[in-house]
């Protein structure tokens, strides 16, 4: 299985390690020509959503990726990746792919002092470690969106069709269950 990892800024290498260890073939997306690779799934990693949003446009990656996601390419967005997928942002008019009918609040837990670690249940995945780093959470979603995890009554993991959005960072923990879940999703495509 071929998984493309958006590698323009942020913690993309950590995702690549997790996916490679699970047996997937991974390639990095840095420019439009990288999209010629066959792709069964896409990762939008953690990092800064403003940086990625800008570079997606500057590097002519936005339109082709937007089209592929709308056509049903399985995608997993973590933290900044979730922000890229959200149809609405609670505190910003600028949205990016806007393919997932959720509203997301950026930096919802405040600055770095608000970052935290917990262990919690994620539906279909089980108990997993969750690291929230200057994290967002989902403030609203429509009925078509399945809520996979809530921590302290905040929605932190959602699925809409083949799009998986997480407020936390499964790529920086020593647990690979979320990545296995995503690969399974790509397999069933």
């Amino acid at each position, binding site marked *: 299985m071929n998984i493309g990892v958006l590698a323009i800024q*942020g*913690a993309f290498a950590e995702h690549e390690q997790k996916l490679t260890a699970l047996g997937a073939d991974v390639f990095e997306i840095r420019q439009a020509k990288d999209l010629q690779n066959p792709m069964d799934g896409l990762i939008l990693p953690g990092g*800064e959503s403003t940086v990625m949003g800008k570079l997606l446009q500057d590097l002519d990656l936005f339109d082709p990726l937007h089209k592929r996601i709308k056509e049903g390419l399985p995608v997993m967005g973590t933290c900044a990746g979730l922000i890229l997928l959200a149809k609405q942002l609670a505190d910003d008019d600028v949205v990016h792919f806007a393919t997932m009918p959720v509203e997301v609040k950026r930096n919802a837990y405040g*600055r770095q002092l608000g970052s935290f*670690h917990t262990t919690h249940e994620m539906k279909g995945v089980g108990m997993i470690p969750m*690291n929230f780093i*200057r994290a967002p959470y989902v403030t609203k979603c429509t009925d078509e969106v399945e809520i996979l995890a809530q921590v302290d009554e905040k929605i932190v993991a959602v699925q809409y069709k083949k799009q998986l959005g997480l407020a936390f*960072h499964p790529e920086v923990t020593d647990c690979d269950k979320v990545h296995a879940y995503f690969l399974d999703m790509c397999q069933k495509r």
Partner: protein
Amino acid sequence: MSDNRYELNKQLAQMLKGGVIMDVTTPEQAKIAQEAGACAVMALERIPADIRAAGGVSRMSDPKMIQGIQEAVSIPVMAKCRIGHFAEAQILEAIEIDYIDESEVLSPADDVFHIDKTKFNVPFVCGAKDLGEALRRINEGASMIRTKGEPGTGDIVQAVRHMRKMNQEIAKLVSMREDELFQAAKELRVPYELVKQVYEEKRLPVVNFAAGGVATPADAALMMQLGAEGVFVGSGIFKSGNPAKRAAAIVQAVTNYNDAKLLAELSKDLGEAMVGINEQEIELLMAERGK
């Protein structure tokens, strides 16, 4: 600081990888930096080139000025305190800064001791010229490292020297027999456990950025090809002719540092680069502060 907190602090640095952290002195500059694609900003009253020109004692910036920048942008905001000045660091923690740079750019407050960074919940980044310095700072609680380079000069030679030295020393350590690590730890003046960790992971235990003297997209690409995981740009942007354009070009150069054709495009029409000073011409070597 709990173990979890230290892990989260190291992980924030991981989220900054592949990005550019820019020095800014006003909320307006911070917005320009954010729009140009900075992954974080460093709030300070004077950029290093001006600190160098002005001389005198250089201190932590006015918290009000830093808070103005925190309100202006959504990306992480960093700020500098003097080496060893733990009271300045406490103040920066009180205003919930995202990262503290215990920096040789400011006048050192202590010529022997660095801050015990394990006593803080906010993360610290520190400069290092070589592996020993990096591991000593990590042992004190730093969760991110950058080369010292030579700030405010626009001259990349020292950042290159520091990055090459770090890589060479890591390669040497990795090539040792395991029973030689005890002596290596003694020579580096750091605990054995840290040396063992570098030996096993073949890299520093934290993220390592380039800093000090980056002025062009080519400088940024050079440092990335030498193994930097991201870049700090201080005086290079707002001391140049067209800051917004130069900033955006450096951001793209860090993402596609191996694509010379793209780098050629990015390097066109950027206006005047900062004038810069050669290392032989400077009287004050900031990199020699704090070892």
